[in-house]
């Protein structure tokens, strides 16, 4: 693989960029691999990458029914933060955040991690107490956060109206080293690195069945033929239920549509990410200048990638209350993604009832920020049979009542 750099661009400029290689190969599947990952979104590709990088497992295929990175990886609002309340969540999201910090260098692909800071607004007394609790928890979890007063909120983000008539800003939970990254680049960067390690990324290949012998997985059937494997990792987000059904088990998951919106691009007005959970809206400004806005999820099962308008309306209302200058901006586009919600809204990284088959799903509305940590943990689980980061996220927790409930803090998980 040719390294990317300013020098490489200059060299190519002289010949009209005719010398750039494919970012990743597009091979036909071999008959068998040591491991197959189903799903070439961020989580699947990261799993493959760390299988190779951390565990030396490179005879790996990543199978994708559409195009890599074409699902939620490329549809989210790109927020990266780790200011979670519960220990298992804080551990995996902080792992992810710290990996994001050096990911551009690790992958030799600029994923534009921008540690611009995330502010979660407290707009009720209850939220103030909730975020103070999170700040205390974070202090012991090795996550650097700080509860700040309204004045500091206004300093960090001057366009916020802190004296709104209904929900004045009482403070905020500030994570300075949180931020955003370029979502597509995360998938593309991992894909390029996986391909470079000799892994096969097979796009336009849908898994239609999972072959088992004596309770063990032996391979998958696909629209490009049967492919054998010793280990199988399923990382397909909203379609996890469909794949689990193929292997004869069910998941505590329901798929719903979540929407996001962007405005027309404007000159920079906002340097940080702001989340306002009481009124329910969150926003950042992309490097392109668009205001990137997260909306609410529908409450009903949906596989269409289309949500309902009232969520757009509610979100925009909330944001105009918080940022009154928004009212005269124009909304450019809104879209939906299918998110997989578990019973406690926390993810699953787990063994399954089928031996050597592993599943990573249930990231709900908050998966992008976890990608490197999720891949790290899933790879460790697949390679060694256990991972401290994944331990608490097992499938068995629902039966035991051992939930990881993040909604208990004033915030919601995004």
């Amino acid at each position: 693989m040719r390294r990317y750099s300013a020098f490489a661009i200059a060299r190519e400029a002289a010949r009209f960029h005719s010398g750039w290689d494919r970012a990743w190969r597009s091979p036909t599947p071999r008959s068998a691999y040591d491991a197959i990952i189903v799903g070439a979104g961020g989580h699947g590709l990261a799993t493959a990458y760390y299988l190779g990088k951390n565990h030396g497992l490179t005879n790996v295929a990543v199978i994708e029914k559409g195009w890599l990175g074409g699902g939620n990886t490329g549809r989210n609002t790109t927020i990266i933060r780790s200011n979670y309340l519960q220990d298992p969540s804080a551990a995996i999201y902080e792992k992810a955040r710290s990996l994001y910090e050096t990911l551009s260098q690790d992958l030799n692909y600029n994923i534009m991690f921008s540690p611009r800071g995330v502010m979660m607004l407290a707009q009720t007394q209850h939220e103030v107490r909730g975020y103070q609790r999170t700040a205390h928890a974070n202090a012991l979890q090795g996550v650097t956060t700080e509860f700040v007063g309204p004045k500091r909120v206004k300093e960090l983000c001057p366009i916020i109206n802190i004296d709104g008539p209904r929900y004045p800003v009482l403070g905020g939970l500030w994570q300075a080293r949180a931020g955003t990254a370029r979502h597509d680049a995360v998938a593309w960067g991992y894909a390029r690195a996986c391909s470079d390690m000799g892994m096969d990324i097979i796009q336009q290949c849908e898994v239609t069945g999972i072959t088992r012998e004596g309770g063990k997985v032996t391979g998958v059937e696909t629209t490009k033929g049967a492919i054998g494997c010793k280990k199988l990792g399923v990382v397909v987000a909203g379609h996890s239920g469909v794949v689990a059904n193929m292997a004869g088990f069910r998941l505590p998951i329901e798929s719903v549509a979540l929407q996001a919106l962007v405005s027309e691009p404007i000159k920079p007005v906002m340097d940080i990410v702001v989340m306002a959970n009481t009124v329910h809206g969150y926003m950042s400004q992309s490097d392109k200048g668009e205001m990137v806005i997260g909306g609410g999820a529908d409450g009903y099962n949906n596989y269409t990638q289309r949500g309902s308008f009232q969520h757009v309306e509610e979100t925009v209302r909330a944001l105009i209350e918080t940022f009154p200058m928004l009212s005269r901006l124009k909304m450019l586009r809104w879209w939906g993604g299918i998110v997989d919600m578990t019973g406690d809204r926390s993810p699953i990284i787990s063994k399954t009832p089928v031996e050597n088959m592993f599943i990573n799903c249930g990231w709900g509305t908050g998966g992008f920020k976890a990608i490197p940590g999720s891949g790290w943990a899933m790879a460790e689980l697949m390679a060694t049979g256990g991972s401290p980061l994944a331990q608490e996220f097992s499938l068995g927790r629902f039966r035991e009542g051992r939930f990881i409930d993040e909604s208990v803090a004033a915030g919601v998980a995004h």
Partner: protein
Amino acid sequence: MLIFTCPYCGIAAEETELTPGGEAHLKRYGPGSSDDDFEEYLFLRPNAKGVHFERWRHSHGCGKWFLAARDTATLEVFGTYSAQTTEPPAEIVTAIRAKRPDWSPA
């Protein structure tokens, strides 16, 4: 923006008048039931991509819960019916089969 006809009050109810309530026809398992059954009842869902039986409440209307058969991939509604049933009534099954000949109840 879904629309369902409420089987109680007969109104074509807007999604904003309704509250979704998840999968229908769950059998409740109470004290003394097995861990398997209880987990199944509370958490495990077929999450079908296709025909889905689900609960809705006409919360900003007549206040009644009702059930619906809907395709989660196309959002087509095959019918709505009383919440006081333990399985989809025959006419709903017929309506689904008319549109989805390959479908069979799970």
